[in-house]
């Protein structure tokens, strides 16, 4: 998983990293000049008188104007076009910040329907992505360092940000405006995938999950309605979904396909490979492993995993009930699940 701006994975981040490394080099140079003068003033015995004007005009005016002016111009050039509106063919996604998770809504395009998901932003490599950023409660900030700059999510305002992922990979995006108790656990994962993988993922996400078949999953579906999970969470296609009410909690349709649970609180699935090297690039971001242990842990004791999260712990449920809920949300009969399988086996 990449989280640093020093290893940019897209043109925007590239431009910003370029500005950063140039500035670092130039400032290091300026620092050395100033410190050289200081060291000489302190310790060099052979120093000759220097006219005051040279210190004041040279060091105090010409040097900073040249150095800083150059940096300004360079930064301006590097960032030209970064704030332009997204190009027409961009993938449009609405990102909304909540305490402490991200809701995501992919716009419909062509015959691909719109759909909602949460906390995991999957995008195709090479195609511009246009985000609209809004907040449901307090100010948050979207920041995926490897993919470009930062933009605040301000209540009452709609901000925009465009980025393109050049390489497949999983990129970490921590909320970077302090937003309360679980600010540290409000992480957006961006998964950049090859376009064909993305198209498949998109198709699967937009589709309703299969009706539960195993008795345990069916019981889980019933419990999901019975214990009021539905008042905050949506699982599309289930009888318990309550339509288009504002989401109080993340949309849980296909939740088991996500790499993390609780906006970065719990690792739910492996991800093939996190970093794109050529050999493994096909497997980047492919969920592996069993989602149910994480789901169980989360449901049983949210307040232990993510204290302060706006969901109660369900410690009072029996282990069997929790197992059933996990089974239901994992959307697959466990008996037949291979140890390591690719994406969720939903058929459109």
């Amino acid at each position, binding site marked *: 998983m990449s989280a640093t701006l020093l290893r940019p994975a897209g043109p925007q981040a590239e431009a910003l990293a370029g500005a950063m490394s140039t500035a*670092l080099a130039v400032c290091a140079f300026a620092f050395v000049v100033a410190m050289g003068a200081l060291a000489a003033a302190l310790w060099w015995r052979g120093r000759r008188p220097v006219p005051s004007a040279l210190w004041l005009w040279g060091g105090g005016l010409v040097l900073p104007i040249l150095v800083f002016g150059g940096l300004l111009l360079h930064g301006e050039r590097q960032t030209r076009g970064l704030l332009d509106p997204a190009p027409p063919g961009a993938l449009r996604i609405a990102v909304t910040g909540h305490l402490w998770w991200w809701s995501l809504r992919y716009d419909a395009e062509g015959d691909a329907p719109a759909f909602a998901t949460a906390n995991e932003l999957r995008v195709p490599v090479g195609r511009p992505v246009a985000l609209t950023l809004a907040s449901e409660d307090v100010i948050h*900030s979207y920041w995926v360092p490897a993919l470009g700059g930062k933009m605040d999510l301000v209540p009452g305002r709609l901000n925009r940000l465009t980025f393109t992922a050049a390489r497949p990979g999983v990129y970490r995006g921590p909320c970077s*405006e302090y937003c309360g*108790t679980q600010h540290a656990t409000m992480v957006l994962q961006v998964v950049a995938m090859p376009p064909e993988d993305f198209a498949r993922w998109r198709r699967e996400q937009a589709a309703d999950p299969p009706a539960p078949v195993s008795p345990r999953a069916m019981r889980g579906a019933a419990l999901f309605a019975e214990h009021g999970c539905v008042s905050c969470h949506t699982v599309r296609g289930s009888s318990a979904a309550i339509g288009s009410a504002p989401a109080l909690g993340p949309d849980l349709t296909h939740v088991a396909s996500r790499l993390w649970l609780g906006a970065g609180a719990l690792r739910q699935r492996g991800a093939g490979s996190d970093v794109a090297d050529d050999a493994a690039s096909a497997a980047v971001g492919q969920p592996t492993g069993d989602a149910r242990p994480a789901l169980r842990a989360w449901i049983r004791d949210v307040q232990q995993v993510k204290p302060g999260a706006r969901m109660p712990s369900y410690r009072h449920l029996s282990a069997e009930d929790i197992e059933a809920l996990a089974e239901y949300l994992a959307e697959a009969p466990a008996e037949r699940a291979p140890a390591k399988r690719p994406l969720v086996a939903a058929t459109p």
Partner: protein
Amino acid sequence: MIENEMNGDAISRPANRLPRPPGELERLEAAWAPPRGWRRVGSVNNVFIGKLYIATAFVFLLLGGVLALLIRAQLAAPGQTLIDAPLFQQLFTMHGTVMMFLFAVPMVEAIAVFLLPNMLGARDLPFPRLSAYSYWMYAIGGLAFYATLFWRLAPDAGWFMYPPLSGATYSPGLNADFWLLGIGFIEISAIAGAIELITGVLMTRAPGMRLSRMPVYAWAMLVVGLMIILAFPAVIAGTALLEMERAFDWPVFDATRGGDPLLWQHLFWFFGHPEVYIIFLPAAGLVSTMVPALARTTLVGRHAVTAALIGIGAVSFLLWLHHMFTAGLGGMGMSLVSIFSVAIAIPGALQVFAWIGTLWRGRLQWTTATWFLVGFLVTFVLGGLTGVMLALLPIDWQVHDTYFVVAHFHYVLIGGMVLPMFAALYHWMPLWKGRAMSERVGRWVFGLIFGGFHLTFFPMHIAGMLGMPRRVHTYPSGIGLELPNALSSVGAVIIAVGVLLFVIDLVRSQRGPEQDHEDPWRSSTLEWLPSENYGTRSIPHVEHHEPLWHRPGLHEEVEAGVHWLPGTITGGRETLLTSPARAHPLRIVVLAGDSLWPLVAAIGTAAFFLLMTVKAVAGTVVGGVVAIVAIWAWLWQTDRAPAFEDAEAADGVILPMGASGWQAPSFWGVVILIVVQATIFASMAFAHLHVAMRLDVCPPPGAGLADVSTLMFGSIAYALSAAIVMATGRGAWRAPVARWRAVLLVPAFGLVVGGFVMGLQTAWPAERPPTLDAWTGTLAAMHSLQGLQVAVAALLALYFGARIVSGLVRPRQHATREAVVLLWGWICVQGVVTLWWPRWIA
């Protein structure tokens, strides 16, 4: 008086005959002797208050540092659960708040209270009781505020308290209220300090110390004083608006009702950005004083450095938007702010090279202070350069609100203020009790603090670039954050050891009786003259910008009483008033003496604000009454004509005694106070304008505007009221004001109330209560501010009336009258603008 043609001075150096008459020194000492026993707490002298003030601010540095250590303990390793998130958030909010509001700003003001009068050759600050009041308010309020941590009631929304997080919905507890009310009133104390500094620097300098000869430090404090009175009101207005939103549900920052969370950021950073220069400029002034003293040569480019201070002060008000580069405001404005933010580094660089040039030219004495100054230069230059980086949009978009920023501002704040402060403590410690601190231990203290600092904060740059946002209570392993954080935590412990060593050496070195300091570094500025509570025996006549180097005999002359005002004339505490630019001696004024009232007033004020926060109504009222009674009692003793019309300030130089009208420091103090009020009011008016501009139609449907005739009536009422108050005290300079004229204040007050009520009735219709939307909410806030002014008018009328009835408004003691006229005039102006504002905006 002989014209001194040589240097263009209109006054010459006094040459009082020696020896001085017997008993003169004893009378001077008696006049300035502090009260004994427990009454000592009523001492208002700047030496006493200044020492207490510095010590208290230093205690807050330690208290804030303890919080930092706890923070570093939690962050030492990934995924720790040593401190839970809510407590951690209280810790970092308190750390930032304590360091900024209870340590840094008070410390720079405290050093000025202690050092500035002596450096200017004044006997004290112009309003000693105001200094005492503001100190006690800060000390009591600050400790009570800090104590909220022990009840887990400390604020937890970050030191800049962004709404909506700090609003009633997301911070329902008292925590945020403690911040808003606690810090709100501590800011009042900072403003009181600023009034002292400005009037002190401009009106009480030693004769001959024209502006061009004034120490750079005094320039720095003058600029800082002006910055405080322009910057702090914005955050006072902001906190008032946020508190009203929290307490009365008047939406201002609530986006669901037409408010705007970014409005808070504008108000906060309009204060917050100048704030960092309010902290840095005094330190820069101290550096500009210490570097020449230690290098034994005058400062390179004295005037350029002074100009740089002024330039930084001015430009710092244009940069607040760079804290909002990622808020999505966009447009040309951001590029312009980016350019300004880079440009402010130029006067910074100029000062740095002036200091380096001075060191280059001089023959340096290597004291502990020198080491701290070198450490300051290294650290501050690095912090300045990362500041330039952050001013560049493409860099800020990445590292804004990350540990890179945390690293940057610790470099400029610790580098730019704390290291110079340690240098200053070592350098000026001999002025405290005549005892220097250990130079040997000092090297260790420096090494530990400097090394620990860089070990703590340099890795934070890297943590930020690796993707660590600020204010997280923990971070995951596996993304490279383990090492930088572990180093930071180790570094923090090393700093703590260094500070502990400093404290130990401080206690060790300052034991024992007071002794003469004997000017250990052979400095050039006046504070190194032999001095007592009253400052120097006689006030030195200044002929050069490095007076002690220019006239080596000044020590003895001043001590012998050759110079100005070698004794006391009335038996009270006197100082010279000099002209602002050329420092001609104009008058001798008698300063207010020791009194317990400022302390009582401070206790009352603190009780008022703190008990209001916890909604203890009875206690709040009692606190308010105590404060008002105490301030009344304190003021009642002031504005008295000295016993003599004029007196000899030096042999053959007769100066008038006492000051009224525009020559009195109190007049200018009140003028500054009005500037503060005007800025608070302007900030609120801006808030209303800001939310109005976000409306589709203005005024919003159904709001309606008062018709012009009503507004005219209101305006006339205010104008008439101001005219009556002016007439009430007319002719006070000629003859005592007749007692019956106090009656005039009744209709004057009635008219103010009338104007206010008229405004209230027409401002918004009943079906649009202030809770409805931000437009009405901000309007209600403006009217509330005017309501507060009406209450002030009542007190002014009562006090002024009582003075008139007691026959105290008379020739040579009518400063009260001028103060009341000025304040009353502003109340009326503000009232009129409040009436018309929504109509003008619409």
